[in-house]
């Protein structure tokens, strides 16, 4: 059996800052094996993005335990969470979120720079990653000079160039048309199958769900069904 990359046990997230506390996640149990591609599905407000965020260490659960790649991340200090995100997790956002003043190559290099990778290795790995995603010609273009689909591919390149144990994608196709979404999903499938990248996608797009190996449905912060 494949090693578990993520294990969530009775994870809850309550936003108590509101007048009426909002229970975004209620005692969620969730496991993710290495090499899986799981989609977290559900309507808006179901808790899929919140689950993605707590797994990625962007938010802390109010209760429960989350283990990522053998590290219990609940209660970790902010600096340790930063390191975890930098070295073990890749993020792909709905709005691409590239650094607008850097070229595609520099955007990909930037995260390696944060890891302290030397110049030559950084450049080589970044170019190889852009090449593997079929976008070497975008290396010198800035985000403003690229289409949405191209930007999302660069965002994926940035997310995987560090060889993370886990790739988290939050509504990666929300701003893309159908054809571009299909291209993007092919890229993710290729990464998952050929490189064994473990992926969690929060989505309500049926096309995305069709590509994933497993689907976890959430409603009102609870896991309601899980299936292939």
């Amino acid at each position, binding site marked *: 059996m494949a090693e578990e990359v993520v294990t969530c046990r009775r994870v809850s997230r309550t936003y108590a800052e509101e007048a009426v506390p909002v229970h975004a996640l209620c005692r969620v149990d969730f496991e993710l094996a290495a090499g899986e591609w799981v989609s977290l599905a559900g309507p808006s407000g179901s808790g899929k993005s919140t689950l993605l965020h707590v797994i990625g260490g962007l938010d802390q659960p109010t209760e429960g335990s989350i283990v990522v790649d053998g590290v219990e991340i609940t209660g970790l200090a902010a600096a340790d969470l*930063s390191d975890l*995100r930098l070295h073990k997790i890749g993020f792909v956002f709905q709005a691409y979120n590239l650094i607008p003043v850097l070229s595609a190559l520099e955007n990909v290099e930037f995260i390696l720079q944060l890891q302290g990778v*030397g110049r030559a290795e950084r450049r080589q790995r970044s170019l190889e990653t852009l090449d593997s995603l079929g976008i070497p010609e975008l290396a010198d273009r800035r985000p403003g000079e690229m289409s949405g689909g191209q930007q999302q591919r660069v965002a994926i390149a940035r997310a995987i160039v560090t060889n993370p144990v886990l790739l988290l994608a939050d509504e990666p196709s929300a701003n893309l048309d159908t054809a571009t979404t299909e291209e993007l999903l092919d890229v993710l499938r290729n990464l998952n199958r050929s490189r064994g990248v473990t992926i969690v996608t929060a989505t309500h797009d049926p096309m995305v769900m069709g590509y994933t190996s497993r689907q976890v449905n959430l409603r009102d912060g609870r896991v309601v069904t899980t299936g292939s």
Partner: protein
Amino acid sequence: MTDPRRDARAGDTGAMFVRVAWRNLWRRRLRTWMSASGMGFAIFLVSVSMSFQAGSYDAWIETATSLMAGHLQAQHPAYFDNPEVRYALTEGIALTRRFENEPGIVAVSPRTEAFALVSAGERSFGALIVGVDRERDMALSSLPDHLSAGEYLPGADSAFLGTALAANLGVDIGDEIVVLGATGEGGVAALMARVDGLFDTGRPELDRSVLQVGIASMQAGFDLGDAVHRLVIETRDARHASDLKAILQAAAPMDVRLLDWNELLPELEQAIQIDRASASMMYWLLLIVVAMSVINAFIMTVFERTREFGMLLAIGMRPNAIVGMLGIEAVCVWAIGVVIGIVLCVAVVLPLSAIGIDVSGIEGMEQLAAQLMMPDRLYPSLNVNVLTESPLWMLAGTLLGALIPALRVRRMQPVEALREEE
């Protein structure tokens, strides 16, 4: 031990941050130019004002020191606090020759001094009698330049006195005066002199109380031998007189005390300090205004780029690194401002420092100029202080102005920041 590869990577990361920060500045060109220009204009104003201040202080110092005090003086250790005839430098002439050969010294003039009664006919007035070496004193004192009648000490028994003192005594050129005082041992000192010259400095306290005679005549009359009370020294640059004083003092005999113009003319130093303090108020206000505008610009920046910062936090960048990057952006704006300000300042001040500005016609300056014996033309002075002080204060203000809003990044939660609209 340092790891060279780690240092190289740190330098590499710094270079990347600088590149990102520099490019970020040009995302809002107008705002960047406005901030940098505001800073540059403030630096220009403060630096130009400081150059005029420095120029006027140089003029004050030169005018005040050249009249009597000089840049430095050597005295008996007790004379400054207790100016009695007996506290004299016994080897005055030898010391004069020794100091004349020191590097950085332009001229040395020995002087004797005593408070005495000056009489002419039925009238008598107290005065400060100063014995001077005519040639040496002319090389460093501007008092002979204020000659209003007669000649400056043409003979061994000549006297040169203020017009007010002459009027009080009822004497004119060619008249005889008698000086009666006390020697260092308490005996009677007396000398006769002929009024050969009068001076009018425009300073009543000087014109009514100072009388100069030949040093040999005074040493004989006051039984001083070769002793002198002051060795008045002119240095190459009054601003470095304190440094030279320390060097000379270290090498001087035990019974010689060196004093610089700050100590000799404390009122001049105080006047400069007061003027500096009042000008500093204006500089501070200006810097605060600019710092406020920097705060405003960076508040806008932080709000506009909240989602971007959220993304940077999400991919693992530390909040302090983001704050540092914003700091670099602030320093870049400051650097542009410094270039603008300093180029403008040099362009304006450099020609003026050569040709000067005629201040005689400026309303209110006439009285001040007369009081301080300032020249009609003011020459602004460019020096390291002028060119670095305001940029450095501005850097502090800029960093403070930028870091206050940037610290908001430290409190940012990545998830909340990522939800922000662009």
